[in-house]
């Protein structure tokens, strides 16, 4: 009897929380709507009615952004840089996590502490030495330079995450593989990499977002050429801004990320079977 009343009260509480939460969620949806809506307007229609729903949809803005504003080129840059950076991040952090979590070697703890410490230094603090290093290495205005920079800046967190993840796996898995005659590289490839998939997918998504959305590092390293986000930021004029053109660019930039997320979300749900240890 008392259980029933508690259930009722909890349900009421749930509703009480759900409504404001839904409203907050809606405020997140509005900018998306704003961007899509205005990207489909002509500049004239936008000036006449900023907030109204588009009446004569046109893809003119997309075409213009893609061709005349060089976004196609920037887009290509971003894809290359993001894909290669994320690949490097995943491979290196999985290797480093494996080593730090499983192998025993001198200074292991110190190395881990240094990595943790570098996690706490914001990019802005090291901009000047970073910039000088990039120039010194002759990597200014190269995609390789940007890939290297992203990998370096986002690596501490990735390594930290993979180390914690691998530390949570039963040691026996690696030991069984060693008894089965697997070399270290084979243990990594056949056991650690597949076992690390849940964490690696998370890292992949996070790092893709960071690399794709970055402006600061990209602005410093690629000064002639540009990545997509820098290119879009440049669509804003000094005195006037073609808002439909800008929003079209934003939609173009956001689309790959949204698609990626949808694809991988299904992958995460279909799941990595976990059953190594009696659960």
């Amino acid at each position, binding site marked *: 009897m008392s259980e029933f009343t508690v259930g009722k009260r909890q349900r009421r509480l749930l509703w009480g929380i759900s409504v404001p939460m839904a409203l907050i969620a809606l405020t997140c949806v509005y900018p998306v709507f704003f961007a899509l809506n205005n990207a489909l307007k002509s500049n004239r229609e936008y000036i006449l009615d900023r907030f109204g729903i588009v009446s004569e949809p046109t893809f003119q803005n997309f075409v213009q952004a893609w061709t005349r504003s060089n976004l196609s080129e920037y887009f290509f840059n971003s894809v290359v840089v993001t894909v290669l950076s994320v690949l490097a991040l995943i491979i290196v952090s999985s290797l480093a996590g494996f080593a730090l979590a499983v192998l025993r070697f001198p200074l292991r703890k110190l190395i881990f502490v240094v990595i943790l410490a570098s996690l706490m230094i914001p990019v802005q603090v090291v901009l000047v030495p970073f910039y000088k290093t990039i120039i010194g290495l002759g990597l200014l205005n190269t995609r390789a330079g940007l890939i290297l920079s992203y990998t370096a800046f986002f690596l501490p967190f990735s390594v930290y995450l993979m180390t914690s993840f691998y530390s949570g796996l039963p040691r026996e898995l690696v*030991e069984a593989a060693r008894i089965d005659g697997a070399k270290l590289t084979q243990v990594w490839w056949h056991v650690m990499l597949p076992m690390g998939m849940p964490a690696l997918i998370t890292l992949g998504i996070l790092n893709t977002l960071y690399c794709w959305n970055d402006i600061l590092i990209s602005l410093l390293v690629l000064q002639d050429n540009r990545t997509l986000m820098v290119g879009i930021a440049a669509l804003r004029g000094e005195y006037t801004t073609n808002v439909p053109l800008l929003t079209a660019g934003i939609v173009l930039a956001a689309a790959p990320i949204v698609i990626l997320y949808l694809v991988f979300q299904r992958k995460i749900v279909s799941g*990595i079977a976990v059953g190594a240890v009696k659960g």
Partner: protein
Amino acid sequence: MSNISITDLRKSYGQVEVIHGVSLDIEPGEFVVFVGPSGCGKSTLLRMIAGLEDITDGDLEIGGTLMNDVEPAQRGIAMVFQSYALYPHMTVADNMSFGLRMAHAPKDEIDRKVKDAARILQLEPLLDRKPAALSGGQRQRVAIGRAIVRDPDVFLFDEPLSNLDAELRVEMRVQIAKLHRTLSNTMIYVTHDQTEAMTLADRIVVLRAGHIEQVGTPIELYEDPDNAFVAGFIGSPRMNFLNARANGPKSVEVAGRTIPLPNLTADLRDGTALQLGIRPEHLDATDGVRLMMDVDVAEDLGATTFVHGTVGGETLVAERRAHVGNAVRELEICFAPDKVRLFDPDGARVR
């Protein structure tokens, strides 16, 4: 098949030594069980044999070859872990063939060996499943299958059954015994379940705090323990210990009763404090020393009853192959003097 020879093996973690010089010879094809209380070093010893822990000092030979610094994969061993340690992203077949694939064995050989092992362990219908879709017992069979496929000289088991429920444990125990008969490999098996030790072992090694207490066949350890620790560890329920005092060269006094012990080789000194050990199953004799026991609880298991109580203030368990009933307040126990084992106060056997 391989013999294993361990000489004065030691293991330290930093400054702390946990295995204090263990020596042991294991015959080819022998089934040896390590038993002992938690933390006594059973797993550490097994893992040193497997090559998963460095050997701090001493020699380990397998098949006549010094193995101290040899890679685990090169020692001719296979190991079954308590947690099964199956690769969750691989099917049962892939789990079992992993070692052969790492060694780049030909595909038909891999298929044949996996099939053979699957047949022995009745895993054929499960070969395409992932470990997550298996029951605990099935997972353990896969783990054993993975060991069989490697065709090792020596099988190492670290508490392989302790994650299973009681019924399954009995079933798997029988399977492992059968497996040993079929393959006749050398096997080393770690457990703290003394039933597993008694039923599986050719020889039992009793460990305590990094030392070997006694090595012998199950019957030797049961009948002729070297010390009170082994006497108490082997046998279930454990042996009863009563305070005794020598009152003649070949007799002791317990609870005011004199017990003649004509089989003793040593002569006792009058007044020496001793411990008298007598197993619960030996308190049901028709002839011998009789004592009255004050009953606390009678645990009736159906076929047998364990009666817990006290004699002269000391706790005691007696076994009765009959229903005793809960109303009983007093029970006469009776034991033959030749079933008595004597120990000195430090636990060493007095023969």
